[in-house]
């Protein structure tokens, strides 16, 4: 009997570095990702969010603990868990169309005509039909992200892993991509684990908001974001969204301040200070 959770992380730990200078990145991290929901992970910068994605994707192996997808342990990279990377990881030497069919063509699990048809449909869906034969560098940042989304979707992943996918876009394209992705998710409800460092982006998208601690990362808090769907960017101006934002920022502030007390790093103090000012302004 399948559980409600597609992905389960059990006591995940990982340290990097040579045996004589191990640095713990993730420590006893426990997390469940519900099916057909958007789980957003936020945390201080450099806390190990990308490493977490690498572990789930199977690019790295944990020192202890396990990653379970549908109850089965994850052993390595697979198209069940597609990653949308920071910035764009489209292959520059392939056209947009060739990038999209890369996976299915390689695995030969379907006839090429089917793959072609699905690729064209996806291109249509992400609004890039006219750009199929262009190379990635001929596309704008936002278009690259949409092409990358199509490249992931054609592999029919059970779980989408998004590693700060909209980072590096200008404010305008970022907002457009957020709306696009929000509408896309609300239509498909493809289970998604979305990592970001932007608290507003997190609240806009999340069903479940996971706040990580400082390094070594563990789950500091899980908030359930019960804002009505379908959502629009304007939802961030509602009092409920403000309340979630304040709650999340307070936890992050505490976390940064704790870390400053413990380690005395001025970066952490500055980060705590920024969170506090953000909380104050958003409370107004």
């Amino acid at each position, binding site marked *: 009997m399948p559980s409600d959770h597609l992905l389960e992380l059990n006591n995940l730990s990982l340290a990097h570095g040579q045996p004589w200078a191990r640095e713990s990145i993730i420590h006893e991290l426990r997390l469940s990702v519900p099916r057909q929901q958007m789980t957003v992970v936020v945390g201080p910068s450099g806390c190990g969010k990308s490493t977490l994605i690498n572990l789930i994707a*199977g*690019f790295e192996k944990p020192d202890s603990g396990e990653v379970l997808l549908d109850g089965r342990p994850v052993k390595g990279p697979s198209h069940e868990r*597609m990653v949308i*990377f920071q910035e764009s*990881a489209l292959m520059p030497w*392939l056209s947009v169309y060739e990038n999209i069919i890369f*996976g299915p063509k*390689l695995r030969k699990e379907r006839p090429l005509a089917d793959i072609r048809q699905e690729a064209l449909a996806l291109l249509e869906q992400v609004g890039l039909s006219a750009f199929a034969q262009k190379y990635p560098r001929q596309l704008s940042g936002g278009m690259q992200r949409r092409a990358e989304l199509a490249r992931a979707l054609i592999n029919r992943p059970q779980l989408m892993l998004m590693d700060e996918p909209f980072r590096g876009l200008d404010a305008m394209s970022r907002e457009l991509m957020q709306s696009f992705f929000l509408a896309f998710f609300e239509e498909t409800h493809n289970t998604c684990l979305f990592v970001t460092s932007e608290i507003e982006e997190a609240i806009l998208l999340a069903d479940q908001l996971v706040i990580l601690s400082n390094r070594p990362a563990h789950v500091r808090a899980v908030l359930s974001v019960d804002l009505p769907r379908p959502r629009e960017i304007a939802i961030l101006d509602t009092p409920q969204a403000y309340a979630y934002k304040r709650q999340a920022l307070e936890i992050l502030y505490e976390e940064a301040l704790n870390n400053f007390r413990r380690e005395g790093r001025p970066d952490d103090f500055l980060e705590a200070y920024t969170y506090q000012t953000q909380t104050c302004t958003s409370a107004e």
Partner: protein
Amino acid sequence: MNLNKLILKNQALRRGIIAIIAALLVWEILAHWRLWFGYSLPGIGLMPPPSAVLHLWGKVLLDGSYWLSWYASYSRVLLGFCLAMLLGIPFGLMLAVNRHLHALFFPIFEILRPIPPLAWVPASLIFWPTQEMSIVFVIFLGAFYAIVINVLGGARSIDIRYLRAAQSMGAGQWSLFWRVVLPATLPSIFTGAAVGMGITWEVVVAAEMIAVGGRVYGGGLGFFVWNSFVGGSTEQAIIGMLSIGIAGYLASSLIRYIGYRLMPWHTAA
């Protein structure tokens, strides 16, 4: 946009031609300075004027031995260069993808690399049965190091996200190599080829000056320059020099053209 491009290109072409003509004019005046102004400029020695060089070139063009020199140098360069590509690309890729082989071969490679190709001339004359083979070998060495270093660097600096994305989509070792590592390294391969080709021309000329004595035909352009100098014709030596310049330019244009055709994504606007 196309029209703009054309004008821009023509403008660049026009400027290039103007610069060449201006340089020839200055040279012409300097060469005649003493004759025209009655005193010599300090630091300016004897030099044939370009008009005399061009005049002689017109005659040399009709001489078969001049073209044989072209043929001799070009065939040596292409042979050595192709061997360097054929061995250098797989060698560089091999060092990049396998750390055991890297640990094994890289130290030897790094010790041999600083030895200038020309320092190999005496040893290779003794080692190889024919003079021709030893010249090709020295040319090969010149290009080989440049190609290997560039291929190795290029293949090692591939963005790991491409490899990871391909792995997620189901690529095994074989597909990773052919579909990611190789195309991602292609720009570096062409950088290595362009640098290597430049070095082959430096090497061929010097090697011909050292090694090809007493053979007027098939001596190559390097021998042509040296032989003209020894024979007392500075004009002809200058013709040889300029011919080498043109030959090198043609060779690197060929590489640029092939690179342009093989990597459309690199230049697509």
